[in-house]
């Protein structure tokens, strides 16, 4: 570490307490003084309740597996992504927008890839890309918002679930972890991160992801840090208020309802704690390969740098928008496929160069596929089942599942063969080593993906 950036804290030699360290060291045997925010008190109780069952604590160490979730927002046209080119029904349903047979990148004698996905074909051949065919869920909903919510929360179509599937994973396995265990690139936290014990940070430009002020004396910076770092001094704890945690009100009330102010205080704390680390990594780890200059390229480049720098993240979340192709879709979809291809290829090269490709899995999903028949505007309306991609050095590559029949349609849409929660369950159980039954509420059949 050079002298001129001495205000930066090294990620692994941090003198700052992470939330986890802070909680672990301050929790034991002590009650909480009145000045500690309520949300932190609640966390002590949560943590203590959890510590009784240490089996569910999963290490968040720097060699653990990483999941990158890539949302294709708007409803990707799965049939023009993985194309059933040998089926005449495909060309009958899509006389204008069907991809001509000679342009399809064939995978076998039945299906092939969109011509823009040439790099993904390479990854497929190298054994680093899995294609999961016909993924969906029963009673598909064709509303963008509702179907996205179903995918984000892994609920049944007729049940509204408030917490996300990744949020429930954080709750189950990452309690008390550093907030950067979940990272969303951008300015939003996806609903899939929503959890009982809120977790996850978001950022898109590390150099801006910090508190900036005009005071060069550093005195306001120290006040700011003090306000956002409630490191407890043991001397301020009144030991007489200690005793059994069980006897304190709220000890068993793991269900937390933060007030809005508490929510803001916690977010401010998470922001302060994560910004030092993110900035330090960003300074030290420039991208090792060149990424395409697209929004998705920028996002995955940043994920690559954070992985290289060892940010203690289990789940990264990125998205690519623009897939709602109701009108004249051919050129739009071709461009999206090309951008997807180029960004994923760069990401795989980056991770390979880092030596991290084997411990990262990238998974794509979209809220739905599109209608089999093209519409009157040479586009496609909202549909149902569609393929997903999984990329990484540690996965079982190839085609998984069956391509849905183009004859046995469900209200004009492809019927699913694989419930998307089987994909989630497989990733949880076999990749993240988390109990999928606990996270998803029931046991879904596992796939041979990992």
């Amino acid at each position, binding site marked *: 570490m050079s002298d001129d950036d001495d205000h930066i804290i090294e990620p692994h030699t941090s003198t700052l307490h992470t939330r986890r360290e802070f909680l672990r060291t301050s929790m034991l045997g002590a009650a909480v003084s009145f*000045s500690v925010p309520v949300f932190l008190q609640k966390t002590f109780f949560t943590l203590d309740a959890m510590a009784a069952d240490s089996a569910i604590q999963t290490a968040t160490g720097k060699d653990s597996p990483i999941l990158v979730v890539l949302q294709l927002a708007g409803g990707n046209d799965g049939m023009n992504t993985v194309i059933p080119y040998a089926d005449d029904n495909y060309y009958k349903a899509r006389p204008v927008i069907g991809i001509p047979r000679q342009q399809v990148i064939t995978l076998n004698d039945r299906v092939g890839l969109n011509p823009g996905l040439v790099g993904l074909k390479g990854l497929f051949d190298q054994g680093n890309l899995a294609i999961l065919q016909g993924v969906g869920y029963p009673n598909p909903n064709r*509303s*963008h*918002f*509702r179907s996205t919510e179903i995918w984000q929360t892994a609920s049944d179509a007729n049940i509204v679930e408030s917490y996300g599937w990744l949020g429930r994973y954080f709750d189950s396995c990452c309690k008390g972890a550093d*907030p950067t265990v979940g990272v*969303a690139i*951008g*300015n*939003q*936290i996806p609903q899939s991160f929503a959890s009982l014990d809120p977790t996850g*940070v*978001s*950022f*898109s*430009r590390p*150099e*801006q*992801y*910090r*508190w*900036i*002020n*005009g*005071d060069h004396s550093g*005195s*306001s910076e120290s*006040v*700011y840090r003090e*306000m956002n770092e409630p490191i407890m001094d043991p001397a301020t704890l009144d030991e007489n208020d200690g005793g059994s945690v069980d006897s304190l009100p709220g000890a068993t009330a793991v269900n937390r309802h933060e*007030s*809005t*102010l508490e*929510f*803001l*205080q916690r*977010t*401010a704390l*998470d*922001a302060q704690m*994560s*910004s030092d680390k993110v900035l330090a990594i960003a300074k030290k780890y420039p991208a090792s390969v060149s990424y*395409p*200059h*697209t*929004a*998705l390229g*920028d996002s995955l480049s940043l994920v690559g740098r954070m992985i290289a720098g060892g940010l203690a993240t289990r789940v990264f979340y990125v998205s*690519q*928008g*623009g897939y709602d192709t*109701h*009108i004249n879709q051919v050129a739009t979809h071709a*461009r*999206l496929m090309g*951008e997807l291809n180029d960004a994923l290829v760069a990401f795989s090269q980056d991770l390979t160069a880092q030596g991290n490709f084997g411990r990262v899995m990238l998974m794509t999903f979209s809220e739905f596929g599109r209608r089999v028949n093209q*519409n*009157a*505007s040479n586009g496609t309306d909202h549909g149902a089942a569609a393929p997903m991609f999984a990329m990484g050095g540690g996965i079982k590559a190839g085609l998984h599942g069956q391509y849905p029949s183009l004859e046995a349609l469900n*209200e004009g849409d492809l019927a699913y063969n694989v419930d998307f929660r089987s994909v989630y369950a497989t990733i949880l159980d076999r990749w993240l080593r988390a109990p999928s039954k606990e996270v998803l509420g029931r046991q879904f059949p596992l796939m041979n993906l990992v």
Partner: protein
Amino acid sequence: MLAPLHARQWDLQKAAHLLNRAGFGGTPDEIKAFCDMGFDQAVNLVLGGPDDSAQFPKPEWAVPQNLLEMRQQMMMLAPDAKKQAQQQVQKQYRQEDIDLVNWWLQRMRYSPNPFREKMTLFWHGHFATSVEKVHDSYLMWQQNELLRQRAFGNFGLMVKAVSRDPAMMIWLDTRESKIGHPNENFAREVMELFTLGIGNYTENDVQQAARAFTGYRLDPRDETFRYAPFQHDNTDKTFLGQTGPFSGDDILDIILQQPACAAFITRKIWTFYAYDEPDPGLVNALAANFRESGYEIRPLMDTIFRSAEFYSPDSVRTQIKSPVQFVVQTSKLLETPLARPQIALNSLREMGQVPFAPPNVKGWDGGRAWITTSTLLYRYNLANFALGTGPLQVVRPRQLADTGKGAGPANAFQVQNYQPPDLNKVIPAQVRSDPNRLIAYLCFRLYQDPLTPHDTETFIKYVTDHGPNPSDTTLRELLHLMMSTPEYQLT
């Protein structure tokens, strides 16, 4: 439950609350004047503020164009000239978009009737339409004007007007919909998001309603609504249990008969103005009156703003400022002009709310969704910029989100604010040298509420540590610290 607040209970804090929620807040002097008016007069002003249209004339470019003629002229050009002309049009539209956002922000900031602007902002989030698909600033302005004129009027009439609004017809593809090829987009969203809420209709109702909304066209000569009877499906539809050769207006009338509609709208209005997750009993009471009145908005708002519940602890300072509220209110509280248009637009984008460009037809989720670690730090840094204590990094906007074109770090640059607040206005001379009074005064100016004793002590100590007569620099840094807090995000 909706017992009115007694006029005796009207005080500075309640006046500040009404001014914050019904409008965009005000300075200590403005809050005091609003309070002195008395409860009854204050609510009357909110619901019957002056007409400000002379003060905010429409932008000069906000006139219809003859698109047919433009297209024909374009066709006659040579390929190179055509490309150039198209680029010119694109550039002009981009400039108009920036101009339009600024035009509205200025009106929110300076109107003597900010209350109508706030209600218009509510309806914009409700009938969320984006210029990123409409690509026509004039039509976006026109829709905004429709929502403004009808903001406190009749909801049924507003929905019908919106169904014929050209921007909406482009946004949700109604203009593409014709007999034999109905487009479901508007039919679905009008029920899911504008009137009933999901669960109160079936997929079949969507398909039947889509047939009723056929034959709506835009006249390319003057960008107006035109009904094309030969493209309308006038056969029978069965919709929400009723059968007939329904038109689009008939469909909306049937929707307005559903109790779910009034409940859906009142819940959304209450959430926007008061607090999240209102008690169903409260919503039902408001909804019953709303329906009985024939969906008159002004009496509904009158009941809300006069209710004791609106001023309850569940409501006061429990709401997170939207990015628009943050920008406009900060400008008011610091008595500074708004940042220049491109900067204001850029910062709103970073915080997640660009007027005229909602992320989708559902509008902005709002509430806690405004705040993530990145948007919170951005708000802190925007305060730094507004105070003139530091630069703001501005990123040249990516082209439309759906093009995915990146704008890497090379396109980021820093700007300084050359119009920082005048501290003599923001901090009266008599409190400047007394740290206790100074902090108490700034708490009222910034939060309209005291801080916790611990935080108050922290700020008093900060001032005290800088010596007896704090310099302007110290005071600006103090303001920045006080705005870099969870409390400043609340209203």
